[in-house]
């Protein structure tokens, strides 16, 4: 299988890579670009641990081919903090103890950021439904939802 040349922007940085036709964006991020923050939990779009945004749209990286990323802008968990400054969502997750093992945390943070960009004041129900594609087995979701709602409040106040 010959390799495809792909040019994208990842977390604001120009990025070029070669990949096989059947490699997913998740494969590329983790195995070629050393961006292991996005996790593989299922490779079938059922767990959300590989959540990234593509041209501003929340997607599962395991359901996008590397080749499809050509000409797009990708953001991953690695692009969420700015230098040493955490995003309010990241800080809220820490403050609320909204993570235990942490494997689902990158996916939740990317997904929650996408939610708040569209809806800065979601209800608890809206938050839960938006995040239904992110599975967590450790927390029972309680502290995660509290963290997202709290971050939303903080972000509205400092906007």
């Amino acid at each position, binding site marked *: 299988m010959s390799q495809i040349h792909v040019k994208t922007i990842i977390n604001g940085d120009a990025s070029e890579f070669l990949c096989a*036709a059947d490699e997913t964006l998740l494969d590329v991020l983790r195995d070629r670009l050393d961006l292991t923050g996005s996790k593989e939990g299922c490779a079938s779009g059922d767990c959300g641990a590989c959540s990234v945004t593509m041209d501003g749209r929340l997607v599962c990286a395991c*359901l*996008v081919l590397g080749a499809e990323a050509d000409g797009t802008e990708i953001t991953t968990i690695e692009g969420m903090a700015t230098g040493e400054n955490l995003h309010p969502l990241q800080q809220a997750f820490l403050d609320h103890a909204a993570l235990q093992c942490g494997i689902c945390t990158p996916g939740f943070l990317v997904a929650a950021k*996408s939610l708040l960009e569209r809806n800065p004041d979601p209800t608890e129900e809206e938050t839960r*439904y938006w995040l239904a*594609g992110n599975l967590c087995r450790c927390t029972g979701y309680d502290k995660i939802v509290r963290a997202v709602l709290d971050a939303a409040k903080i972000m509205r106040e400092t906007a």
Partner: protein
Amino acid sequence: MQFQSPLSVEDAVAFLADDQNARILSGGTDLLVRLRLGHIAPSKIVDIKKIEGMRSITREDGGFRIGAAVSGAEMNENHDLYLAWPGVVEAAGLIGSTQIQGRATIVGNLCNAGPAADSVPALVAASATARIAGPSGVRDVLVQDIPIAPGQTSLKIGELVTSIFLPAQPVNGSDAYLRFIPRTEMDIAVVGCGVSLKLDSAGTVVQARVALGAVAPTVLLVENAAEILIGTQLDDDALSALAEASSSVANPIDDKRGTIAFRKDVSGVLTCRAAKIAYSRAKGTVK
């Protein structure tokens, strides 16, 4: 395996006609899963997303033409489309998670020909048509004639669906889609029901279409729904008869998602619930 991103429908058709083991990639939320599981081994993937018009929703003859690469999320963000066909838009919005919504398309959902496809019953109730491009030209076909068996469509070699057309929503008309799943999200429909109604200015049903999903190899039109509902205002007797009609038409299997008895029962229940929603929406537009 090769990856191609044609820029025109003609090029896409040529790739497909040339190679019977080529697969179309639109949203990819089904294709990539099968690829990874090793269920398919295509020689070529033809990505249609760079073809002009594939990603647009345009007004046409009072209705809407939805390109084959329009995602569920994009459909849900189109206010006019939602006002006209809330059932279709909601159905598209129920396919998978927010992440799936960011990619999945109703055309892909339709062409996978899965018996439980969420977008199909609502499209069928809406009398939607699919525009097909192929080696012998372009043709329009009712959505309900696309799936012919689980995993099989009526499309010929080299053909692809380039758009779905939703007709103009008549005044005093609306639709609804409901599905039953065991959790609140993320499941494949155990039963799906799309209802489209048109009322007269007094609130009496003058047109009705009811379609069921996940209860037969392909989507089912409940043929006598129109007869049962026309002339009524969805009184209890009409609803009872409607439930009965749905349950008896449903022809499901026992599988890991539901039993025959369960699916038949719930077909009736969902049909009534969806009909009531469509009715109150249609009435909301009564002048």
